[in-house]
């Protein structure tokens, strides 16, 4: 299914969907999994946008449940929810899923697989990643991602070896593409917003101007370190594999040359040559490790560093502002 992705180049999120996501992630109990949910909406080909109009949460896996039953129940749950929503005229096209990610940690293979599944059904599916911690600091953090054509094809073949990576010139940067997001409300909701403003006019958010940066910096650096370590582990695994591979090839060549020699000597003496042996069983080549994890880790690390840069930019701005004030 390597058809070019549909021409949607931005995402429009409705206010209702946004607030539902925020509320769900706020109230979700901290369990094993990050809160996740399904998004409903429609594709607007005139404006080349994907509109998200509503969403519903997915109940988390309870510790005592087993995976199989959970998946069955989940399927039924989704069908029921969608049927009910259709009854009250809410759009019933699944356009993707949303996931909450603390500090931007979301690039895992489970994530990739879910996105692939959703994108298989509806080509324009996206995933909305929401960072609850950043939002409580005052910056609404919502990003939309989609698998690129190359990564989509790659997931289809499930072949992540080095050769295929080289052939398709796949880098970790091209795993996802980010889409810009706009929020939109209807006019009635606008009226509601004006009403809300009237009721709570003085609640300004001074969270923006908080200069206490050390805790966030610390956390980000620690995450960066961990991801970096993961990456090193992966690279070491790769190196080991290469070493083993070479060694096996060498041993095999030695064996073959020795046999040739033997055969040559035997021919001289007039004896029948030694039977051909199946070499592949004797010298088993080690299996090539999948490069998927490397891709994921590098993508995650780059994401962390970009986030850190953004955060650093705004904290520097604040610090400079304070400095100039103090000089007065």
């Amino acid at each position, binding site marked *: 299914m390597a058809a070019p992705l549909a021409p949607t180049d931005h995402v429009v999120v409705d206010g209702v969907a946004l607030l539902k996501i925020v509320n769900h992630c706020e109230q979700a109990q901290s369990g094993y999994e990050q809160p996740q949910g399904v998004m409903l909406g429609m594709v607007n080909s005139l404006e080349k946008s994907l509109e998200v109009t509503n969403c519903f949460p997915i109940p988390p896996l309870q510790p005592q449940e087993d995976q199989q039953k959970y998946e069955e129940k989940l399927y039924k749950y989704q069908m029921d929810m969608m049927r009910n929503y259709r009854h009250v005229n809410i759009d019933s096209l699944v356009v993707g899923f949303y996931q909450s990610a603390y500090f931007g940690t979301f690039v895992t293979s489970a994530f990739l697989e879910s996105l692939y599944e959703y994108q298989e059904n509806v080509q324009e599916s996206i995933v909305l990643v929401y960072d609850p911690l950043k939002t409580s600091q005052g910056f609404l953090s919502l990003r939309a991602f989609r698998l690129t054509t190359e990564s989509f094809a790659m997931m289809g073949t499930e072949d992540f070896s080095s050769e295929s990576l080289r052939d398709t010139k796949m880098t970790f940067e091209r795993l996802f593409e980010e889409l810009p997001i706009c929020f939109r409300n209807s006019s009635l*909701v606008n009226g*509601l917003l004006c009403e809300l403003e009237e009721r709570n006019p003085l609640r300004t958010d*001074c969270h923006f101007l908080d200069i206490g940066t050390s805790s966030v910096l610390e956390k980000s650096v620690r995450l960066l370190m961990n991801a970096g370590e993961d990456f090193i582990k992966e690279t070491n695994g790769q190196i080991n594999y290469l070493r083993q591979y070479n060694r096996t090839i060498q041993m095999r060549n030695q064996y073959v040359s020795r046999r040739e020699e033997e055969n040559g000597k035997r021919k001289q003496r007039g004896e029948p040559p030694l039977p051909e042996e199946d070499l592949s069983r004797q010298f088993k080549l080690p299996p090539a490790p999948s490069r998927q994890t490397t891709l994921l880790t590098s993508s995650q690390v780059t994401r962390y560093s970009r986030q850190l840069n953004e955060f650093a930019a*705004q904290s520097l701005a604040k610090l400079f502002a304070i400095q100039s004030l103090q000089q007065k």
Partner: protein
Amino acid sequence: MANTVSVKVHPLVLFSIIDAYERRSEEQKRVIGTLLGNYDARNTIEIVQCFSVPHSEVEDEVAVELDYHKNMYDLHRRSFPSHLIVGWYSGGSEISETSFSIHDFYAREAKNPIHLVVDTPLRSGKLSLKAFICAPMGTPRKQTGLMFTPIPVEIHSFNPEHVAVNALMKGRFTRNRMIENAADVTLVETALQKMQNLLARVVAYVDEVLSGRIPGDPKIGRSLSKLVETVPQIPQDELETMLNGNTNDVLMVIYLSNLLKTQLMLNEKLNTLS
């Protein structure tokens, strides 16, 4: 009369009600739905979420799809097990005769259900919302009836919810009501400007009072002096060292993260080359 119950509503509930009202089918004049939330201490009821329930009204008769309601509630509880039914809402019309029968049904589900009325067709000129509970009235030993009595409503939101609503508020006066997601630095800039405006207003007020144009208000004076007192008095060089230290930390972290990024990119280049 029972103790005054008060209600805290989250913005999401209002958004959903309006959304449901906008999506109603042709013949329906109003929408009805269930309110979900928690009972707080001190007689406050917090309404956190809601879902709409299809119903049909023919003159004075009303039929609410109870199965749908039960089904949705069960589904909802899978994700939010702590929510309870606290009442019902109606958007689109005032209280009518039929409201009582619906209220009756909800009284079986919740202790003292709240009835939230949102004025979606904007009859009063603005989008008002009122909450009622049913109170018995009438003369004892004669006819007793029920009356909807209003209770105070407050809009309450979680911190991140508040941030999201603020982000949405920026689109109030734009033409197509679309709001772009701004970068962090621009947000800081706008916040600083807001702060500057507020300070300018305060300074203007103080100037006016000093020049005698308007009488000073002692309450404002006291809060102003409290404000000035909260600015910490730190000697100049200490403050500078602190700020410099922070700036250095941030710069170092930027450098490290960029180093990592370049390393990774190099790695990728090598991979694709070989």
